[in-house]
């Protein structure tokens, strides 16, 4: 699905929704509700992903090969087996890393300009 010549940097900058979902899945495979909860936790409740945004973004990320559906199904006694689980692909991990480095560079630039001192 991913061109052999493609570089993670080609996809940057990612939209916030994409990066948040990549981060949420970095800790392991999750279903839609799990992802939205993880994003909620990661952002301290600042970002709450609705069904439209979440599944629209997931659809594009699947097409771009950033994530994939997991074949593993939970024990029906523990979870609804109709849920779909998603996990990061290796390509998705590379892209997430590249985005994190890009953001890190921006934060360092902000630090160098003493924009974070107020904190």
């Amino acid at each position, binding site marked *: 699905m991913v061109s052999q010549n493609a570089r993670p940097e080609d*996809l940057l900058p990612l939209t916030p929704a994409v990066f948040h979902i990549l981060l949420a899945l970095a800790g392991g495979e999750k279903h839609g509700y799990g992802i939205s909860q993880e994003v909620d936790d990661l952002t301290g409740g600042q970002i709450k992903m609705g069904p439209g945004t979440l599944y629209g973004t997931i659809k594009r990320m699947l097409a771009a090969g950033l994530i994939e559906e997991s074949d593993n199904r939970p024990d029906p006694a523990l979870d609804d087996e109709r849920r779909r689980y998603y996990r990061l692909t290796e390509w998705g991990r590379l892209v997430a890393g590249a985005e994190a480095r890009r953001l890190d560079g921006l934060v360092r630039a902000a630090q160098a300009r003493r924009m974070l001192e107020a904190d």
Partner: protein
Amino acid sequence: MRRAERFFRALLWLYPADHRRDYGPLMEQLFRDQYRDARRCRLGPARLWLRLLPDVVLSAWTERRDLRRGKLMNPSLSGRVDKFTTLVFLVPALVALLLLFDPDVLRGELIPYGLAALIGAGGYLLGRAGKMPRLRLWGGYAAGFLIFALGFLLINIWSPTMNTGIRALQREPVVGIRHALHLAACLITLAVFYLTARRSIAPLRIALVVLALNLGLWIVLHNTPLDAPIIWSAASMAGYSVTALFIAIMGVRSMRRSGLPALVAVMAGLGALVTLFTIDEYRGAELTIMILLGVFVPLIVGPAWLLLTENWRVRKAGLLVIWALMLFGMGLVPFLIYRSPGVDLPRLDTVLYNLGYALPIWVALWLALEVYEREAPQPEVTAPV
């Protein structure tokens, strides 16, 4: 909770049908989970709706915009197949085949016409009833042509087998009148395609190439000692080729939106067109070989290849090979059958004539696939998300 769920389910109609089908149940599930959480606090549901309404409206608008622009990274080529839609289009073809090889199943001149009308009406009603949203997305012409072609295929295959119906009346000048009617139908189809195609520059350029090929072939045939086709035959040949070209282009383009079923349908329609154009001349075993090539390949082998392969390049190469085998095979079969004890010149003429329309159609298919490849992003090419 139930009222909220019903309202949310109603909101999902804002999304395109494909998206609703693929993600609607998942979105409903997520809504139920979020709504359950929200009810834990007094103003939770109100806050949730305040977030959800713009979320749904904006994301539905985004999905529809992407669909219009064809920007979505082409799930149609990722191997996902709507098997129901595919079956709906393959079943009539299989019925036609069954009728062909077991003509005793039904007898009577009116029955094939009735069946063709039923197929056409059934396809039309399915489209109107919204049971097959993809049908609407293709535009009426592609689906309409397929329905027409399948119905016509049925009539044309039935008639020579039973020696009844219009085919039994095919003596000069009736044949000429029929060809003239075909040409008129081709020109009307062409005009419809031209008027409905948003970006018609590339197809028109290709049409010029195909017409030039047709003209060149006609001139070659006309200036050989062989029995040259008269002018209405050449015109008819051009009409068929150009129609085939536009069907191929529109079908390949519609694949962007509608996925593999669109291509399967268009291939079947093209196959039917080729077959009914070719089998005029043949009877007996020769007819059977022609029908095997002309019906089984586009209706069974081609779609099977599409369903079994996922990589676009493999698909494209396979389609070109399959269609080359079919088109040129149909052109060469009479020559192989009749080459001994000596070359039969009228038969050789038939071979050249068959190749004369086969080559432009194959070139049209190839160019249409090239147009598609150039205009549509492939899944191998990643795009920003």
